[in-house]
């Protein structure tokens, strides 16, 4: 007994689907996406999600659409077994409804991007062939912003930098040598460049300010430098390759995250003591650990609150505890992600002074901060990361603070930031210009 009429598989449906795909391929081209993706079931809804800036929805819709295919196949194969098929039909309906909901969300946003009435979304969901053809072939419907994807080398930036910079920047034996060729992520069906061509040498005893707008790759850069997320790079710390020796070297690299990730219902002393147990070698005696914990408590001004629960600490004390947890192992490279966020000017400056004193011990301290001007005099060097026109993080400057002021023609750090930020972020959108200018300067100096 054939209980299901598989009309979806008949010739008319296939023809309609192909025509819709043809229209969709034209829409994809408008968004800077290869048109052939429109003919790949499942993948096409993902890319549609990317077009509508709803990538996550695109992923979910793709997964559920793909799930409908084996379910449909099983229904076809087992269509004589009525007792089992009803469960499969229910499953198919569930997958299809989820897919439709996500598709509707994507299409509503797509309507906004193509500046058409959002009621078109319903037509798209139930008869996609019409909007596919109309939007695909009519020049009237153009996206407000094409998808920024990396398609080969940039004729100006990459060609020059790739050929000349990587070979010309030498690494020093002391301090931190960074040679990042690129850092990519494969995100579902797309490959993205997060960072490209970042080369620098940071000397021991230097405190470095890491400046960059939102999405410029600051945290990615830090993760690559500390070895936490490996890039296509060579990172040398006093000549030792961080990536090759990461398991040993990670205890000599301290990273303080932006948020105070500490258990709030534990005492300050125990928090620091446990951090010491984790980070110091097992052969360290308990008396040495106790001595080290007491010294660090004293250094960070936490001795008076060592018996208090972490939740009772002020914002500044909690931040200092978070830093102390990393500092307990006496790291050589110390990286801090916005240690002064949420702190007032006086407390923030006090914190930065403590970091300065750590750098003065011969360590390398790299700090990300969004309020640089109030503490900039405490820093030796400045790293400026900029998001280029393809949204890839690039090095726009590395050097002393005074050189940076001269290079950008700005007195304040915020002024520098404003120049390199994209226009849609309130900046002047001159990042490409400075990336190229700095690359030329590096080649000249090498």
């Amino acid at each position, binding site marked *: 007994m054939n209980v299901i009429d598989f009309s979806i598989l008949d010739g008319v449906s296939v023809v309609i689907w192909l025509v819709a795909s043809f229209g969709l391929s034209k829409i994809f081209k408008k968004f800077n996406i290869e048109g052939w993706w429109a003919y790949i079931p499942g993948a096409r809804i993902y890319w549609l999600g990317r077009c509508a800036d709803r990538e996550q929805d695109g992923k979910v819709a793709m997964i559920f659409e793909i799930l409908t295919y084996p379910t449909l196949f099983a229904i076809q194969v087992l269509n004589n077994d009525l007792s089992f098929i009803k469960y499969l039909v229910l499953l198919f309906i569930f997958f299809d409804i989820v897919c439709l909901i996500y598709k509707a969300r994507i299409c509503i946003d797509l309507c906004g991007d193509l500046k058409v009435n959002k009621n078109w979304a319903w037509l798209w969901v139930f008869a996609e062939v019409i909007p596919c053809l109309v939007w695909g072939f009519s020049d009237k419907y153009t996206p407000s912003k094409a998808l920024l994807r990396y398609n080969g080398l940039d004729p100006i930036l990459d060609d020059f930098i790739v050929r000349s910079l990587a070979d010309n920047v030498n690494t020093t034996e002391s301090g931190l040598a960074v040679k990042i060729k690129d850092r990519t992520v494969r995100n579902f069906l797309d490959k993205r460049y997060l960072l490209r061509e970042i080369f620098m040498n940071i000397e021991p005893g230097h405190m470095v300010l890491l400046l960059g707008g939102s999405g410029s790759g600051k945290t990615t850069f830090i993760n690559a430098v500390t070895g*936490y997320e490996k890039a296509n790079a060579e990172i040398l710390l006093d000549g*030792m390759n961080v990536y090759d020796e990461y398991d040993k070297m990670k205890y000599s690299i301290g990273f303080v995250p932006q948020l105070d990730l500490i*258990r709030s*219902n534990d005492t300050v002393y125990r928090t620091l003591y446990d951090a010491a147990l984790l980070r110091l070698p097992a052969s360290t005696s308990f008396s040495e650990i106790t001595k080290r914990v007491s010294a660090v408590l004293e250094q960070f001004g936490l001795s008076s609150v060592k018996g208090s629960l972490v939740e009772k600490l002020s914002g500044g004390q909690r931040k200092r505890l978070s830093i102390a947890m990393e500092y307990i192992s006496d790291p050589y490279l110390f990286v801090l992600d916005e240690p002064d966020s949420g702190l007032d000017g006086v407390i923030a400056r006090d914190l930065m002074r403590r970091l300065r004193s750590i750098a003065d011990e011969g360590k390398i301290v790299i700090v990300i901060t969004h309020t640089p001007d109030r503490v900039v005099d405490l820093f030796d060097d400045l790293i400026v990361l900029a998001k280029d026109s393809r949204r890839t993080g690039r090095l726009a400057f590395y050097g002393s603070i005074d050189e940076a002021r001269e290079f950008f023609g700005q007195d304040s750090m915020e002024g520098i930031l404003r120049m390199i930020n994209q226009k849609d972020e309130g900046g002047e959108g001159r990042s490409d210009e400075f990336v190229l200018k700095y690359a030329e300067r590096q080649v000249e100096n090498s």
Partner: protein
Amino acid sequence: MNTENTTNASSGGTSPRSSRFKLMTGNHRGRIAQVPIYLGKNFRMFIFQNDWKVLPMSALIAALIAMVVGQNMYVTMEGQFQCSLALTCICIWNGFFNSVQSVCRERPIIKREHRSGMHISSYVVAHLIYQMFLCAMQALITVGVCKIAGIKFPEKGFITPWFLVDTWITMFLITYASDITSLFISSIVHTTTTAMTVMPFMLIFQLVFSGGAFTLYGPAAELTKLTISKYGLTALCAQGNYNSLKSVTLWNTIFRIRDSSPELKEALWQIEKAGQLENILERSGEAMQEAAYAMTKANIYNCWAHMAAFAAIFAVLSIIVLEFIDNDRR
């Protein structure tokens, strides 16, 4: 500190400050040595984060159950079954609530510590030990409250010499298996809100597919093999020698309709007068026997082994899932 200068003198003296790179040598604390660190943290959380509150909560729930359905436990089949199901449910409830938030609430902290050298297996093992302590205490409290509330437990145990110890072991295993199941859920989800959304579904699944609350057929019946509640209920019924108890359902039903027929009323009176009531109840019980609840050591060991296996499997899965914590989005 046991650190050692390795390489490497600053070359050229380009900086006024000299290089002072100390690479830590020597092994850091391994998996076993890290367990006490996290065990200590967990026990401090027990005091400071009010985890201790689960103990009086379990006493309160046990008291309610004992008052409502406890009096007929170990007396009639119906009482035994109802009370066993209720006790199984509260053990599962206790276990789920113990740890459903324990990992996800500190997920970013775990990620940070993993980056600093924490071993996930040490972290999970510390939780396993700590949760074992919590579950053991809760099972002890539940058994104790039931005893105090007047449930008449048999004296002699079937597996151990003491019946209360047998019952405690079963309740502990139900609670612990549930606890580790929810530890696994807590390891998968990223927020406490999601954890608390998932938990009711897990509870309903355990209740519906326990095989006790509803009669299940076909594939649904097979699903009972995946529930802790099935093995917990079976173990408690088997330990209480369910099949040897009398059943009152038949008698109570007939008694309720006695006024519908004078002959029926007379027949019931005659049975009572002849002292045949107990015999009827016992015969009724024999007819209601369930092979699954047979009081055999093999049956009870089988249930215990399944619950222990649930705990072991979900513990391993928790470790595997948390090993990928570095992939969490920033």
